[in-house]
Every structure is written in structure tokens, then in C-alpha cells.
């Protein structure tokens, strides 16, 4: 039986210059969060508001956050990371530079355990996706060693690319590896929820944790908001809602009323850059959407 998921999860888009509304705002945030201390300060503010789960990409700077939490166990006794991998830009840029195979070789660990090296070399030669996927997951997970990672996510660009291609096996392989090697629950982030649920069924991944945009205006809910409503009502999965504020197009109160009316939603992931915003969003969430 997998561990329960906190109601409110803290996301990391705001730390890395991702803003779906404005490039200017994204740039301003990238400037503000150049130092790891600035990120830690915001994470501490979220922690002070009772938010103990950090859902983050495997951006190289997250390694510094992981180091910080590892160094200060007394400050974060119950802190959890939900890694979302891979950090897609790293791979996309590598493909532009070295081509598809070159990039794959670059990320296959060349050092470390002999067995890993053998596994990756053999996998590349045999076109064995199982070997390639598991080695890539292991290399992304290295930065979280010794930390609590009860849920490990496959990030949306990869999930949706594989989904469109019909690469069903990859989901099963990822889920099995995450369970056996890390004792964690596999999670999937997607912009195409109804289609993904069908594909996960085919892959034999049962009652999956799926994180997707869910908001009152249907922003980035491919397949249509009705399809999402139906999925919430009829399908067996563990939904985590992201983008409930639709990048600021919906006010927090209205957003959480919408969430409250959909009791199937287990958790909401949100990002904020200031203690004030975190406190007010968390306050609204707890008032309108108390833990059930």
C-alpha cells in the first residue's frame, strides 16, 4: 500500500524562469532565484506553512537543494521530494548538439558501478529500452540519495511524447523500476489526461498517480475539460491537479472552490515566490478544501 500524498505540494517552476503568462516575469524570477539561498528561503517559508513535499525537476540546481536538506536533517525531519524526470531541456539541448545517439551516449554513465556500465553498454547495442530507461532513471536519481522520495514522476514532455508515439512499454518499465529499485510510487505528468489513462491501462499500470492541469477554464487540458471531468468521475487513478490557477488567470479562491467540488482530486501542486503568497494560497486551500 502506498503512502498518502499531502494535500498541498510545492512546485518549482518559479525558480527556473518558467512562467506561462509572461516572459518578462519569467526572466525576473530567473534573476531573483540565481542563488540557492533565495530558493531555500522560499522553501523554508512553504515549510513554515506546513508544506513538506517539494515536487521538483531534476535540474542541476536541485542537486544543491538536495545537498542543503541532506546537510540539515534536524531542520527538515519529514521533508519529501517528488522528483520529476528527466529535466527535458538538458536532453533536448544535447540532441541539438550531438544528435540523438550522441546525446544518449553522453547521459549513459561511463563511470561508477561496473554492472551499470555493462548494463548501459549492452542496452545501447541491443536497442533494449528497459536497460536504457532504468539507467537514465538511476542517473537522474543520484542527486536524491539518502533523501525521502516516495513518488517519482516521469515529466510531461517525455510522457506525452511517448504517449503520442504509442510507446506503451516505456510506462510499464518506468513504473516497475521505480517500485523495485526505489520503493517509490510511479507518477506521470501529462497534458493529455484522458488519453494517458487509456494508455496506462494498456501498460498494466494500475491506479496510477497522474498529475495534470486541472482548472476551471480548461487551460492546457487537451482532450477537453469534459473529458477530464469524466475521467475524474469514472476512472480509477490518483489525481494531482496542477495549474489550478491557470497561470494566474483564475483567482485562488475561485480555483480552490473548483477543486473542492471535485472530491476525487487528492492533491494540488502550486508554486509561489513569496511567503505572503504561499501563506494566502495555503490559507485559502485549507479553508475551502480541508483534508478529507
Amino acid at each position: 500500500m502506498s503512502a498518502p500524498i499531502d494535500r498541498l505540494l510545492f512546485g518549482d517552476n518559479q525558480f527556473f524562469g518558467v512562467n506561462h503568462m509572461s516572459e518578462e516575469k519569467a526572466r525576473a524570477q530567473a534573476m531573483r532565484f540565481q542563488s540557492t539561498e533565495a530558493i531555500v528561503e522560499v522553501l523554508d517559508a512553504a515549510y513554515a506553512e506546513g508544506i513538506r513535499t517539494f515536487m521538483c525537476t531534476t535540474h542541476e540546481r536541485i542537486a544543491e537543494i538536495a545537498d542543503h536538506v541532506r546537510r540539515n536533517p534536524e531542520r527538515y525531519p519529514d521533508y519529501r521530494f517528488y522528483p520529476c524526470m528527466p529535466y527535458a531541456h538538458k536532453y533536448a539541448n544535447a540532441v541539438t548538439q550531438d544528435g540523438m545517439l550522441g546525446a544518449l551516449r553522453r547521459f549513459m554513465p561511463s563511470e561508477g558501478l561496473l554492472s551499470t556500465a555493462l548494463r548501459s553498454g549492452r542496452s545501447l547495442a541491443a536497442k533494449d529500452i528497459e536497460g536504457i530507461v532504468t539507467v537514465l532513471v538511476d542517473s537522474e536519481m543520484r542527486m536524491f540519495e539518502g533523501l525521502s522520495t516516495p513518488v517519482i514522476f516521469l515529466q510531461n514532455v517525455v510522457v506525452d511524447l511517448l504517449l503520442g508515439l504509442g510507446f506503451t512499454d516505456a510506462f510499464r518499465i518506468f513504473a516497475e523500476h521505480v517500485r523495485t529499485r526505489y520503493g517509490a510510487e510511479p507518477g506521470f505528468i501529462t497534458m493529455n489526461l484522458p488519453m494517458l489513462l487509456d494508455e496506462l491501462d494498456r501498460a498494466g499500470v494500475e491506479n496510477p498517480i497522474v498529475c495534470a492541469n486541472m482548472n476551471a477554464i480548461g487551460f492546457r487540458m487537451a482532450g477537453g475539460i469534459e473529458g477530464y471531468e469524466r475521467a475524474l468521475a469514472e476512472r480509477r487513478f490518483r489525481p494531482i491537479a496542477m495549474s489550478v490557477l491557470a497561470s494566474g488567470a483564475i483567482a485562488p479562491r475561485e480555483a480552490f472552490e473548483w477543486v473542492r467540488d471535485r472530491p476525487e482530486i487528492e492533491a494540488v501542486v502550486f508554486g509561489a515566490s513569496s511567503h505572503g503568497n504561499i501563506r494566502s494560497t495555503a490559507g485559502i486551500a485549507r479553508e475551502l478544501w480541508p483534508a478529507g
Partner: protein
Amino acid sequence: MVDVALVGVGKMGLSHLSMVRAHPDVRVVGVCDSAAYVLDVLGKYTGLPTFTDVERMLDQARPEAIVIATPTASHAALVRTAIERGIHVFCEKPLTLSGEESTELSRLAEERGLVTAVGYHNRFVGAFRELHRLLEAGAIGTVSHALAESYGPVVLKPKGSTWRSRRGVGGGCLYDYAAHPLDLLAWCFGEAESARGSVLGSIFSAETDDEVYSTLRWPGGVTAQLSVNWSDESQRKMTTKLSVWGSAGRIVADRQEIQVYLRDTAPAVEGYSPGWNVRYTTELTEPVWFYLRGEEYSAQLDDFVRAVAAGRPGESSFASAAVTDRVIDRILRDAEAGTAAESASLPAGGLAAAGAAAPTPRRGLFRRAARSAS
């Protein structure tokens, strides 16, 4: 159902394949690439029919439409083959490496009544669509000038080993990056008649350009500055921005938002008022059937598929892509003429003899910095 084949499974090709395969009205009948590795993996795990030879794929899979996502230098021959067989074509940008060739292919496809499209996805970005609509409506009066910019982190160090690092095969900032803002300009203003003061600068690349600057002029007097740099690490990913000045206001648009300033003298446009108006992607973007990396990529393939099904022209046809390719030619010729004039003005013996008066010390400095960083 439209039977679609795809050539080239690099980064763009894979992404197109994923979206087109997920399209409810498409059946993917073949995938072709010369690199057997990725192709074998695809065949093994997705069951898609794969080919290493385009002619064989076209003979056996008999697609109605084809998506071409190979390196640019190979576009012309592949497009020609498809047209000769009466196959509708979606081709990645730029269409070819020569304005003349693109014009000819556009004419051939038109003669045969084929649907054509080129991967200029910015035309499907909500904010750019809104900018286009406002210009058509004359919202900012008589347009005098535009600034078209694209920046991003593609080439950040001296060595690159793919086709993108060689201009001869279609690599370089001009073909790969500048083509996007140039297409937006062509969409809004038609064909620029001249390019002046063009600069094709190298920052890291030995065999191609990493930055492009030019001043374009249209019949009727509109001008535009083009400013493009794909070695800009300050950007997380490619960002394209178009600013337009008119007698009654100004519009600035990028992928996320459109900012419109209207003077009191501006004609009334529904939903807009004098002063600043800001609209975000959340309200400007139409939902798509499948999302990968941005609605615009799905929307452009959807437009192509629907155009094929309905037998109507696509939004971003070969004819409009040929305009962009002819302008690229003008920029290349202008930059070469500028370089030639520059070296002609040097004393015999070139740069070395010119000593301290060498005309491009800045570039030399960058080259040295680049080498020491490697």
C-alpha cells in the same frame, strides 16, 4: 482518415510523429530515416511500419500526405519526389536553401493542386495570431517599422557535431532561427524587397553564423530590424518577439502575451481601448486535441491534416515559405557584399597588414574567448 508518412525522426520529426499519430483523423502508414538505430527502436516498441528508403516507403505505404523533418539540405529533393507522386506535403522550415528552388516547388505543387505547409509554428501561437489580426484590422494605423527578434541557447561552445553546425547543409542561425521571425514579418507585411546592413556573425561556430542582423524594407516604405542570436545562454529556450510601430499605436507580441498600446486616434477595435491593453496566452489560445511542447505545434499539424481532408490550402503554404527563402537569399547576398567591401577597403595583405586598424577586433576577441573555453 488521412494516410500520412513521415521522413526524419530527429528531434522535430519525433515530436511531429507523436502528435500526428495521436491525431484522430490520421493513420501513420510509414516512418523513414537513414539512421537505423532510432528507427529500429521505434519499430520494435511501437509497431509502426519503418523504412530506410523513401522511394520504397512511398511505393509500399502509398501515403496521401507526407511530413518531412530531415536536415534542410535534403528538403528540395524529397519535396520534389512527393510532389511528382501527387502527395500533399508538410515540410519543416526553412523549405529549401534557395529562394529560387522554393518558388519552383511552390509552383509545381500548385499546378498539381496539392496542399502544402511549412513548419512555421509561430503563426499558430495565440499572441502572434492576435497581432496579425490587429494589423489586418488597421488597429495601429499606418505601420512604419517593426523589430523582429529571436534569441536562444543552441550553440554555446565551439564544437558541434551535427548538421546544424554547417551552413552548407542548412545549419546556422540564419536558416534555423532567423527564418522564424522572417516568416512572421512575411506573414504580416508580404515580401521585403531589400536587405541592407546585414551581418552574419560567428560567435562559436567555425562554419556557420551564430547571429544575424539586418534592415529590411518593403515596397510602400515599411522597414524592419531583424535581430537574432542562437548563442544566447541567458534564454532558457528559444524566444521570438515581434514589435510593430504604427501611426496610431504599438504592438509587442511573444509566445506568452500581447501588449497593445493604442493612441486616442486609433480606430475602434472590439475588446481594446486607448492606452495599454494586455492579453495572455490563457485567453488567446485555442484548445488542441493533443498537447506536446506547445499548442502551436499541434495546431499547425491539425491545420495541415484538415486542409488535406478538405482540399483547401494550408495556413503556411510553400508560396509564403518561398517568400521567406527569397528574403534569406537577400540577407546572404547583402552580408557577402558587405564582407567583400570590407576586405576590399583593407590594405594589401588583409587583416595582418592592417594591424591595429583591423576592422573587427570584437569578433576576434570573442573567438579567442571561445577557444580558451573549450
